[in-house]
């Protein structure tokens, strides 16, 4: 192996010289054979950084590993193109009258990539593993509300009471209390094969490199080759229980955003996320015949207040900030109109986002901002352009923001200039992402910060806003970053989780949205659209929010 590598190095070196010294005559690409309207057997999807090779839905924690998992594993349920919940691995499912249990019947023809049948045992195994005390992934939160999961997790029980295998193809899950995201948590979890992962003690999973790199799933594609740093190549799984994939090979190719445009036009990639490109570059792609799909992102950009800071405990101050920042202009100029202003911490694309007339829009209004500040006791008494309070303390505040996201880096100086207008001095400090996380989320040492909030499909805001998700203790990471503690909103969140009725939930979340629109623990900025450029001959390509690879087995490129 080593020897070969060295030989190869030598050989490649010599060849490169020859090419460089003699001027290269490029060999023409292999011509695709066949007539028109033939389906191309290769589809290349651009990604911006390498998958890490943790291809197990219970252990992965990076976006691009997720992409690979999406196509190689399957779950009990999925969405159809109207956004309705439909069966995937499950043949059918029933919800009990008391809304506490879900029974799934599994398709009899479902097979693993190695040809073995998928059974209820595999499903039970998957969810039990997530509650195991040796399990080192992040999935426990999805199962802890199952009956008996806590006891099993703490080693008090031999099995989970709430998971019952009724026969080879039937399994029943029972929850402690009615829990609305429960069905999604169970239904959308990728199922792993017991006969593969059961061989390895759970504590050793994250070191089982061979198994992680070579996933055995039940999805429409199976792993062919993974080259770290370069690409992942997947191949159609012929015995897939659903619609077998139309394109034989599906490739995720690592490339970078600066050269993606050239790669698209050179036909070395077929699909690429071009959200970061400017309008004129997108136009260039369109002129070359590329099509663009645009759909709302699942991330909202925002600026958070530290509610532990006395100055920000006054609602009027927070509202003044909101009025002083021209968010409409931000959307127009910064992201070239490619998004919408957000007025409450929810995704505008979500079914739970309230009708816009319910919320205050906080349209840009310097006068109003100044008045609110004045009412809160901040006024520029000495005429130096910075407001003071009655103790003569000037309003100087530090805004921490992470590097790495260009749009976010550009928001910071805009905020600084906007707030200067109402007499607030903002000092900017840019930090590397991990450092910022540590200071802001871990140690709660900040005044203002910029970040993006990635939201799930289920609108449950509890993980981000419940007072139990807040912490004032240094070193304790907490996702209610601003430190909002509000009994009213807590009770809305509890209510929203304790019913399966969508309309009831919608009403509750409307109240929650209104409250948050009033309270403003954050200055909500905007939600950008994802824009995907793709080969004009690609058909059945309908990605949407949360489902970037929706229906990938049907994507086809005609020659």
């Amino acid at each position, binding site marked *: 192996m080593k020897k070969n*590598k060295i030989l190869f*190095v030598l*050989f*490649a*070196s010599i060849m*490169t*010289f020859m*090419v*460089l010294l003699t001027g*290269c005559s*490029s060999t023409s690409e292999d011509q695709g054979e066949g007539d028109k309207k033939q389906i191309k057997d*290769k589809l*290349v999807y651009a990604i911006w950084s*390498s998958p*890490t*090779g*943790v291809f197990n839905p219970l252990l992965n*924690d*990076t976006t691009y590993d997720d992409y690979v998992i999406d196509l190689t594993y399957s779950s009990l349920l999925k969405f159809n193109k109207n956004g309705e919940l439909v069966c995937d691995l499950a043949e059918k499912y029933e919800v009990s009258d008391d809304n506490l249990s879900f029974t799934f019947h599994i398709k009899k023809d479902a097979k693993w990539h190695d040809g073995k049948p998928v059974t209820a045992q595999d499903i039970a195994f998957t969810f039990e593993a997530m509650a195991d005390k040796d399990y*080192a992934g*992040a999935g*426990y*939160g*999805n199962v*802890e509300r199952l009956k008996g999961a806590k006891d099993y997790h703490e080693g008090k029980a031999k099995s989970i009471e709430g998971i019952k295998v009724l026969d080879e193809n039937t399994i029943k899950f029972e929850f402690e209390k009615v829990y609305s995201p429960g069905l999604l948590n169970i239904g959308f979890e990728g199922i792993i094969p017991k006969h593969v992962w059961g061989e390895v003690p759970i504590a050793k999973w994250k070191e089982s*490199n061979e198994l*992680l*790199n070579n996933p055995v799933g039940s999805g429409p594609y199976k792993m062919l080759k993974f*080259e*770290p*740093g*370069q*690409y992942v*190549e997947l191949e159609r799984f012929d015995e897939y229980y659903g619609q077998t994939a139309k394109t034989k090979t599906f*490739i995720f*190719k690592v*490339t*970078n955003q*600066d*050269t993606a445009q*050239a*790669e698209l*036009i*050179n036909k*070395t990639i077929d699909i690429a996320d071009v959200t970061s490109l400017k309008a004129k570059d997108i136009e260039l792609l369109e002129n070359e015949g590329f099509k663009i799909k645009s759909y709302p992102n699942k991330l909202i950009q925002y600026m958070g207040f530290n509610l532990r800071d006395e100055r920000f405990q006054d609602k009027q101050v927070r509202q003044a900030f909101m009025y002083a920042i021209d968010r409409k202009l931000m959307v127009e100029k910064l992201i070239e109109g490619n998004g919408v202003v957000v007025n409450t911490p929810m995704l505008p694309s979500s079914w739970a986002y309230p009708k816009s007339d319910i919320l205050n829009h906080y349209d840009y209004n310097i006068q109003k901002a100044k008045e609110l500040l004045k009412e809160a006791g901040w006024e520029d008494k000495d005429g130096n352009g910075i407001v003071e309070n009655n103790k003569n303390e000037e309003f100087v505040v530090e805004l921490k923001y992470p590097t790495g996201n260009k749009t976010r880096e550009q928001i910071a100086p805009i905020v600084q200039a906007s707030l200067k207008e109402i007499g607030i001095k903002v000092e900017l400090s840019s930090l*590397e*992402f*991990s*450092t910022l*996380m*540590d*200071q802001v*989320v*871990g140690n709660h040492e900040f005044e203002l910060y910029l970040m993006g909030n*990635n939201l799930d499909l289920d609108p449950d805001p509890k*993980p*981000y806003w419940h007072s139990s*998700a807040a912490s004032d203790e240094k070193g*304790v*990471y907490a996702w209610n970053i601003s430190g909002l503690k509000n009994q009213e909103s807590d009770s809305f969140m509890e209510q929203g989780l304790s019913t399966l009725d969508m309309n009831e939930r919608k009403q509750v979340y409307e109240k929650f949205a209104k409250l948050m629109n009033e309270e403003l623990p954050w200055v909500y900025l905007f939600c950008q659209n994802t824009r995907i450029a793709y080969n004009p001959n690609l058909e059945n390509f309908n990605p949407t929010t949360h489902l970037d690879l929706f229906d990938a087995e049907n994507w086809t490129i005609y020659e």
Partner: protein
Amino acid sequence: MLKYLVKRILTLIVVLIGISIIVFTLVHMQPGNPYSTMIDPNISQEVYENMLKEIGYYDSLPIQYIKWIKRILHGDLGYSIHYKAPVIDVINSRIWNTFILASVSMILSICIAIPAGIISATKKYSIFDYIVTIISFIGISIPSFFFGLLMIKWFSFDLKIFPVSGMTTVGKYYTGIKGIVDVVKHMVLPVIVLSFLNLAMIMRYTRSSILEVINQDYIRTARAKGLSEGVVICVHGFRNALISIITILCIQIPSLFSGALLTETIFVWPGIGRLNYEAVLNRDYPLIMGILMILSIIILFSNLLADILYAVADPRIRYD
């Protein structure tokens, strides 16, 4: 000489331990932790702390270091947190890609730069000298990022001769000669960029060190003996200029393995530079330490090599 070597290698080990302590402390003192970039609010604090406990995050620094060094002495660099694979495997899968790229550009730039440097020194203020000077100033000052994108625009986008990025054509399994040709085609642009940047520097150094010796007495003596100009320059001049050229070349050796972050990023070359950068961003401690230790060893050995080569180039230098 042998005694000298043994002594050198012993100090090298001491220095390595020193480096490892300093680097380990610096790396671990950075704020943030390997999981701080994982934004999943559904993870309870307890699970989060358990995950950190697993990797020994809460141990005091000295304890962490002792654990790490114990493993190193057994030849085990540990597991990468991010890739969930042995560090040595992760590094091994990338370092050779870096090595191919860097060694080709290195040899190429030496072959061009040293002759060009000698000629421009002997023909000072000629047209050729001006051209070399201009080229090397461009090379020293042009950002590799910009230059790389320019290359891509010309050769991949306008002329469509070379591929834009990557190391192989995806989805095509070329084997044997075809496979090598494929890799070579992908190598051309990054090699041009890397060579150009190296070339500029080596050219300047060669020129100035030749200029330094060219006015020495022994050169005049050689000329007076009636030796041809070529022999004077190449044998008497170049040999004496070698010392500083060796220094600069040995400083370059570690870069063969350390990778070039920007060039690798533009051309999506799966090398060690990018790996290291991502490891730092993700606070993948074992991986960062693994890469840095391997690089330290290479750097220390290059210095040793330089000292040995001095003795070869200049017999007056003795290590007794």
